[in-house]
């Protein structure tokens, strides 16, 4: 029968799906550039200490323009803008990435549970999410930060809770689509447990959606972190956090533009690059 015909073609096809997608991604210039930018900032956050950069020390020159001596100039307190900009990736990525990770785990779990059980569980979760989703996130965040303080762990938890409902809704929709497929019914008929159906049958099949949502939320979470510190609710001086630095130096926009523009470019590039990575993943994956 057709066995002989399919084997030759499929041995190849099986080895590929992952690699084929990766190759498709690498052929997209927007993906390559954005991924490099993200990697650059991740690298900066992880390694700036190793290069002996000190974002806190006064170099002795105040508001020095970018040049040979100081690559990106110095700020009003004589600190190196270059060192501070690289070091700022630290907090942005710490809170953004872990907050987003928490949101993804929480949101996916709730979404899968709601989609699998439906009925009152689903209704309860979804109405709760409706409430959380209509709250203006920034105002909500400000209130919560005022109440619980602005430590890094607190920020991570808050970001996680704020972003989880949006992810949960999308994962739930993806799960509902999978639930219509007969492999789930078959697993039930075979007596598979609910937990195992969710973990082994459903999650692998909605994983692409989960990864895409995680990346999209990462961009939003980074922007949110920067916003909070800009408003003085996140990192506190003398932290080199981008949002905080932009706020501190915005009065010098005319006299020392470099102390504002470089951290702003940093936030912008990281957020846009992350978003583009997510977009590319979405297009290639689906």
């Amino acid at each position, binding site marked *: 029968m*057709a066995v002989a015909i399919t084997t030759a073609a499929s041995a190849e096809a099986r080895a590929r799906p992952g690699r084929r997608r990766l190759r498709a991604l690498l052929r997209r210039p927007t993906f390559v550039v954005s991924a490099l930018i993200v990697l650059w900032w991740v690298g900066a956050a992880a390694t700036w200490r190793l290069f002996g950069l000190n974002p806190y020390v006064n170099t002795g020159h105040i508001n020095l323009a970018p040049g040979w001596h100081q690559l990106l100039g110095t700020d009003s307190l004589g600190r190196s803008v270059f060192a501070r900009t690289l070091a700022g990736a630290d907090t942005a990525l710490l809170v953004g990435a872990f907050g987003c990770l928490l949101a993804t785990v929480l949101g996916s779990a709730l979404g899968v549970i709601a989609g699998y059980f439906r009925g009152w569980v689903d209704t309860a979760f979804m109405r709760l999410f409706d409430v959380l989703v209509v709250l203006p996130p920034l105002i909500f965040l400000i209130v919560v930060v005022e109440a619980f303080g602005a430590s890094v762990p607190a920020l991570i938890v808050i970001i996680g809770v704020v972003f989880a409902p949006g992810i949960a809704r999308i994962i739930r929709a993806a799960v509902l689509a999978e639930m219509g497929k007969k492999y789930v019914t078959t697993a039930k008929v*075979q*007596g598979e447990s609910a937990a195992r159906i969710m973990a082994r049958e459903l999650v692998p099949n909605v994983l692409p959606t989960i990864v895409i949502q995680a990346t999209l939320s990462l961009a939003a979470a980074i922007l949110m972190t920067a916003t909070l510190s800009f408003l003085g609710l996140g990192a506190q001086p003398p932290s080199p956090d981008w949002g905080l630095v932009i706020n501190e130096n915005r009065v010098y926009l005319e006299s020392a533009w470099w102390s504002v523009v470089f951290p702003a470019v940093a936030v912008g590039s990281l957020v846009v690059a992350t978003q583009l990575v997510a977009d590319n993943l979405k297009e290639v994956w689906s």
Partner: protein
Amino acid sequence: MTDAPAVQVRGLVVSYRGRSGPVTAVRDLDLTIAPGESYGLVGESGSGKSTAAMTLTRYLPPGTGVTAAELSVAGTGVLALDTPALRRFRAGALSVVYQEPGLALDPTMTVGRQIEEVYRLHGAGRAQARARTRAAIERVRLSPAGQIAKRYPHELSGGQQQRIVIAMALASEPRLLILDEPTTGLDSRVETEIMALIDGLRAELGFASILISHNLPLIAAHCQRIGVLEGGVLVEEGAAADVLLAPRHPYTRSLIAALPDINAVRPPRPAADTAQGPLVTVEHLTKRFQQKAALSDVSFTIGRAEALGLVGESGSGKTTLGLSLAGLTSYDGTITFHTEDRRRGRRTLPRVQVVFQNADSSLNPRRSVRQVLARSIELLGGDQTVEELANRTGVGPDLLAKLPHELSGGQKQRVAIARAFAGPVPLVICDEPTSALDVSSQARLLDLLAELQDRTGVSYLFISHDLAVVRQVSDRIGVLYDGELVELKAAEEIFRHPEHPYTRSLVDSALALRQAQAPSPAPAPAPDFGGVARAD
């Protein structure tokens, strides 16, 4: 009517870019269809039959390469047309009727408006278009035309939708009508009606038609000439009766041999152990969806090692019945299994397994065949290894490492069957297990099911809309009509003495579709293009 043949194709080659280099879908095809002739293209899925027909419309996915010495429809050379001419050609010379009428209609427009649009595009005024639409709806035997025109597609049945699509296709008075599996997915009764309608309209309007199908009896009954495609090559061509009764090519012979013979019954098996009583007793089973009863007061038994066939049109409640037995839906009434519970640890092992129609969705796309079978053996308390199970169910050992998307439809369904037989389950429900497959895969699967039953003594509830298929596997056949079990008797008896009018219509249409198989020499049309060949 012009004297040019409706279709004239010489040396057609169609290829497209595959993942690993170019794939030739159609190879060196020659095809001539006379005006008014009905031509049938048969072949299994992937044989290039749809590609060949769609080439006539020059509507193919980008990246498809088409070369031909000649490719003309009603005297127009299709390959040479520029964009505006191609538009005019598509609007006037030919029409296509697809498999899924529900997808061919715009869900946000009334069907009347959609037909009117075609007339308007051909230059009719508003009032004129409306009048013609009415006439067109009447012509496809839908009435009252005025009311039908005001309905939205979802308010019509599948058969009615397909009639509307046909009315729309004929609105442009085409010379050629391409019918791409027009009745797949419809009940056999509706299928007979639609095909009779098309035959009648062809006689009345004189268009030529190409009927594409994997259903050989259907093609034989409604086409004058048949072409058999295998792997993009036309391996046999001739008058319908000749091809069917005296196939020359081995591939055609294998297709015909694989047909479920309406007269074939399952050879009598050693009488099932009746001393133990039935396996399942169903009493007063009733299921309501809101107001509508999907099942009303259905009672029957399934014997041990018995195969109970269940036929009925879509919406008759046959799937709901299967779901109730599998415990997948709530119901009123009682279903009693006369078996001892098998337990493994604290868990009661399932008593029912289901083989669904759509093997595509019944396998988790991310789990290999081996993973699927291993887990099933564990869950159903089987005592065999994956290799033994695969061997018993004809799943080749080379398939074990594969993922579902690397399997053919028949292979997937085999894995689904293997999964159901992973442990000693007393009842297996087969819900249209072969409807999505071509005839040869279907024949192989039906053999497998019969063989598994002989070996394991399992009972089947075999659900299908195809009486011929049901007859091949079943000891008794039940007929569901509108949620009621209107007839239930031995398979033989259903055919010999159908009592209920619905059963009679089912049996009649099943026989009518396969009449062409019996030697009833249809007047074979001479393949010269002078005269107008007509369908009867």
